[in-house]
């Protein structure tokens, strides 16, 4: 199992966005997607890497087959959807790779090493901590609603929303207060540099991988691809 430095993963994510920004051609895109998928497979997350590979290949094939769609409206629509989804897929792959193979602690350490202000790191930590909490709360609220024979349905979208949102917010504010209290007594507000127990270090292959993954983009901009 080989794992890249979290900073390289963030760099790949940035590059995926550049891909969209520069509107690269298909060849460049394919090369870079392969470069994204390679460490994904090597990180041990074979299943989700494989899933992305298959989806990407399918979209690629659909795109090529519908290339000469002519005036057929339906075919044109399918082609458009396939290309559209394919274009955002590199971002999803890089994102899924970055966040499914990095623990929060590694991520915070990487951000600290990049000299990101502590305030932003704490915000990230809160978001990561809050998501599962909200999901847990949501499940409980749905159970509570079922007890009153209220079901989340299509017929009263606003009403169901109200029944979910109100308890969610009410609880959210107490959870936020309790979490702040717990974090404050553990010194989250201390001024001065915060450190990380987890240590990360850029290895030589991290640098090499960063350079390799950039080459296709440069070649495209230079008109070689």
């Amino acid at each position, binding site marked *: 199992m080989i794992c890249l430095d979290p900073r390289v993963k963030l760099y790949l994510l940035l590059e995926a966005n550049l891909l969209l920004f520069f509107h690269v051609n298909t060849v460049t895109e394919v090369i870079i997607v392969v470069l994204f998928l390679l460490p994904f497979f090597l990180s041990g997350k074979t299943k989700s890497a494989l899933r992305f590979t298959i989806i990407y290949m399918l979209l690629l094939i659909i795109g090529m087959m519908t290339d000469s769609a002519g005036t057929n409206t339906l075919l044109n629509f399918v082609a458009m959807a396939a290309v559209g989804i394919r274009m955002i897929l590199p971002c999803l792959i890089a994102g899924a790779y970055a966040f499914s193979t990095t*623990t*929060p*602690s590694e991520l915070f350490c990487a951000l600290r090493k990049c000299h990101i202000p502590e305030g932003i790191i704490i915000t990230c*930590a809160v978001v*990561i*901590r809050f998501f*599962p*909490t909200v999901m*847990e*709360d949501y499940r*409980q*609220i749905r*159970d*509570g*609603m*079922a*007890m*009153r*024979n*209220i079901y989340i349905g299509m017929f009263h979208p606003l009403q169901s929303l*109200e*029944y979910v949102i*109100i*308890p969610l917010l*009410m*609880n959210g504010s*107490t*959870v936020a207060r*309790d*979490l*702040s*209290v*717990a*974090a*404050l*007594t*553990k*010194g*989250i*507000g*201390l*001024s*001065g*540099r*915060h*450190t*990380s*127990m*987890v*240590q990360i270090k850029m290895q030589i292959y991290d640098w090499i991988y960063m350079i390799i993954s950039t080459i296709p983009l440069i070649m495209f901009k230079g008109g070689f691809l």
Partner: protein
Amino acid sequence: MNIISSKNISFSYMNSEQASLKEITIGIEEGECIVLCGRSGSGKTTFSRLLNGLCPMFFTGKLSGECDTSGLQAGNATIEEYVLYVGSVFQNPKTQYFNTDTTAELAFPCENCGFPSDEIKKRVNECVQRFQLDGLMNRNIFKLSGGEKQRVAFAASTMLDPKILVLDEPTSNLDASAISKLRRMILEMKQSGKTIIIAEHRLAWLNDIADRYVLFESGEIKQEWSAKEFLQFSQSELYEVGLRATRLDILKEIIENKLNSQAVSGNVLLKASNLVIGYDKKTEVYKLNTFCLYNGTVVGLVGHNGVGKSTLAKTLCGLIKPLSGSIQWKGQMVKGKQLTDHAFLVMQDVNYQLFSDSVRDEALLGNSNHEQCNQVLKMLGLSEVSERHPMSLSGGQKQRVAIASAILSNKELIVLDEPTSGLDHYHMTQVGNLLQMLKKQGKCVLVITHDEELTAQWCDYIIRLDGGNYGTGY
């Protein structure tokens, strides 16, 4: 040498006219273990917040008098200054973790202080060794039981080696075996010379730990006893001052008898045969023996944290389907989800099941019988607050609002999940009386609980989900 000394401390929270603490004067010696006891709202928690700097810095308000904690003056020192001297553990295991995994949580205080990585690793290892937490490291906190969470939270509070530990109702959600594990950790810290302050309702586990008991009543220190004096009180003397039992052996005997008693009269409401319950076959499943529930009874459902009590409650309320086995309702076979029409679950955290903007609307949600509604609200003592927003009520009142909607739903099986966690003796008795009232109405009441006092005094019979003896004793 007093490590904590407070002189004539009074405190009232912002936006509150009533003083939460009045003229508190107390000295606590280094290495002492003090138990703060008394009813809910008597000022225990507020006093503990003065010791770790949360009052008046986070929970703002008006403070007068002097409170010195290891040289830090409440009101002058910031919360950050307290971090190195005072470790804190709070009541709710769910909201004590800032990180999503256990190891990171232990490292967190050290990281905030800027310790180098090697030093943090060393401290984490020492801590794991000291408290035997090996099995709990590198775990996702969302997959831990309440007891496990609370143990790691306690361990995290000791990471910076503070002289003082302040614990605010640390056991209110825990079962007997989880409490005894936490107890061992606290004892270990006491032996290493820490000063420990525990605000707590459940007193039995504190025998042999506590040196002194301080009784709070409406913001004042009513009385103080040494451990020796305190442990000589009889049960009824404790109840007189609103405190819970210090000895559980008598209660355990009663519980044991109720476990073995089979003599239950009444109509069989529900019969569950060979149930296998769980969320799906991949994760943990629980196999249950056949059992029956009867009209007009209060049934206690006991067992360790994580043994499947809540899963069973959800199954009986039709929120999840049993994986196999059958459930009969009044002799008729019912499919899993049909049970939602017959059973009502009052959750441990009732905030998740209050949806309307007034108590009356809440009670009428799903039942438009105004007359019955008025009756039920009156019976539960909610008439005066019927126009208020449910979220503006106290915890006990909210619970009663949920029970009101349970009654008005006209369902015959009412399941309560941990209705007395974190309650003092007075409020526990109130819940017990509510259970009796539901019983008189012919409902079947199933109570999931760790509370020995509630089970022994108010349940007709008891279903235990794990084999072996009830509890292991403290």
